[in-house]
């Protein structure tokens, strides 16, 4: 991959699928409880540590699995089938590790990457701020610099896994920045910070993502800045943006595919075939529509993956438009897959929590997709980008 500095997409080693399957099995085992309790899936995180999956994107020279974009998306699809919260936890951690691989200085890379590969360092990101409304590229919280290093004092309204992370990547306005647009990215170990949590976590869905509000304060050495001061927008454009849109879309597609798979298996059981009229044109049409949505998102995901692998400049309007279209389309269509399936199977298996189809939970989880970096905001950006491409050159 030329832009995000991941290693080239090599065929996944055979054991990669086994590691992913092990994490997915653990996620499936605990998902009902972590959803009910709105608790972080600590057992699944432990499985990610033990299997080395936290080092999925870490280069092999640091002891990581050396996976590329394809490996990340395949893992997200598989784990997303079992528990989309767990899949998002891994995908977002991997974005953070890719930022360190591509942009941290040598000292910080040597310190952090072997620990990530060894499963000792689960990373959370602190890049949203009250008042910026999900807009990543400006910050009012300012780093202060003194002879002891950089002083961090930052409130963050949503930190996925923040109560369990071993380290944080934090975006803040750089010291002496001329404007709120000069945002720096800083790494901090958990033990370098005083962390206080505010508020409760009781969301509609994605309950196991445990995305709590935190205040972080502490002091870190100057060389824990990732990239140069003011360099966050470049890291966001080259790493966080593309990996977030691709990774999230893969998690949602995994969730929707899992939902369709469970419904189809149930319908094909002998007991169900005796009860349900499988030649119902309405049922067949609904199943078709769900499958059509999944194939559409899958094709768009793979096409966008190839674009990111090959692009030399992701900032061009056609490339940005494709990345945003993937996110918007995946968020809408994966949610609609579950809506279709609920209509297809009805009240008992579509609406009740204890159905083996798990449509009730999946619907709640996927309702967040359009809000997780809001589709409305992306449409505004895409309208502007469309104006910059009057020829309409599709990437």
């Amino acid at each position, binding site marked *: 991959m030329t832009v995000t500095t991941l290693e080239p997409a090599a065929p996944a080693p055979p054991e990669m699928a086994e590691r992913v399957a092990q994490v997915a099995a653990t996620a499936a085992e605990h998902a009902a409880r972590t959803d009910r309790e709105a608790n972080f899936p600590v057992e699944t995180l432990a499985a990610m540590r033990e299997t080395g999956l936290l080092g999925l994107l870490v280069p092999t020279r640091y002891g990581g699995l050396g996976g590329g974009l394809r490996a990340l998306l395949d893992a997200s699809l598989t784990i997303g089938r079992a528990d989309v919260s767990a899949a998002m936890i891994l995908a977002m951690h991997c974005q953070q590790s890719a930022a360190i691989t591509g942009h941290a200085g040598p000292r910080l890379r040597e310190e952090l990457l072997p620990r990530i590969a060894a499963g000792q360092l689960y990373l959370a990101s602190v890049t949203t701020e009250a008042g910026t409304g999900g807009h990543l590229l400006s910050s009012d919280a300012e780093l202060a610099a003194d002879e002891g290093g950089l002083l961090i004092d930052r409130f963050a309204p949503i930190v996925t896994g923040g109560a369990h992370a071993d380290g944080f990547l934090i975006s803040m306005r750089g010291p002496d920045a*001329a*404007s709120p647009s000069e945002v720096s990215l800083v790494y901090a170990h958990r033990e370098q910070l005083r962390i206080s949590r505010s508020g409760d976590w009781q969301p509609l869905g994605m309950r196991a993502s445990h995305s709590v509000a935190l205040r972080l304060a502490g002091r870190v050495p100057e060389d824990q800045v990732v990239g140069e001061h*003011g360099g966050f927008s470049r890291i966001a*454009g080259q790493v966080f943006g593309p990996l977030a849109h691709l990774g999230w879309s893969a998690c949602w597609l995994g969730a929707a595919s899992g939902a369709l798979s469970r419904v189809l298996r149930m319908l094909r059981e002998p007991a169900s075939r005796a009860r349900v009229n499988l030649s119902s044109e309405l049922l067949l049409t609904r199943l078709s529509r769900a499958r059509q949505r999944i194939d559409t998102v899958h094709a768009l995901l793979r096409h966008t993956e190839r674009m990111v692998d090959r692009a030399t400049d992701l900032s061009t*309007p056609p490339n940005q438009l494709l990345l945003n279209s993937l996110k918007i389309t995946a968020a809408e269509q994966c949610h609609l897959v579950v809506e279709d399936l609920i209509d297809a199977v009805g009240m008992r298996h579509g609406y009740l929590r204890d159905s083996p189809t798990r449509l009730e939970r999946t619907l709640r989880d996927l309702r967040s997709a359009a809000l997780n970096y809001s589709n409305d905001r992306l449409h505004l950006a895409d309208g502007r*980008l469309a104006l910059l*491409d*009057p020829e309409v050159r599709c990437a």
Partner: protein
Amino acid sequence: MDPRFTELLIPFLKHLRGRELTETSPLPALGLDSMQSIELLFAIEDTFGIALPDEDLNDATFATAGSLWGAVSAALAAEGGTVSAA
């Protein structure tokens, strides 16, 4: 940089705050966001009577005052216009 160029650029940079605009002035850090980039593009095209080629519409072009002026002056040269020295 052409004074007509700096004159039309400065109102888009709300964080410039009276400081001097140079070729290395970073536009995003000085307040140029994506919506304003489009308005700036239209202003440039109207003022100079040129159209920037689509392949120039990327982050590198809008990185600094100098990189944007480079694209504008190249488009002016391509149209056979004259470019006055900065």
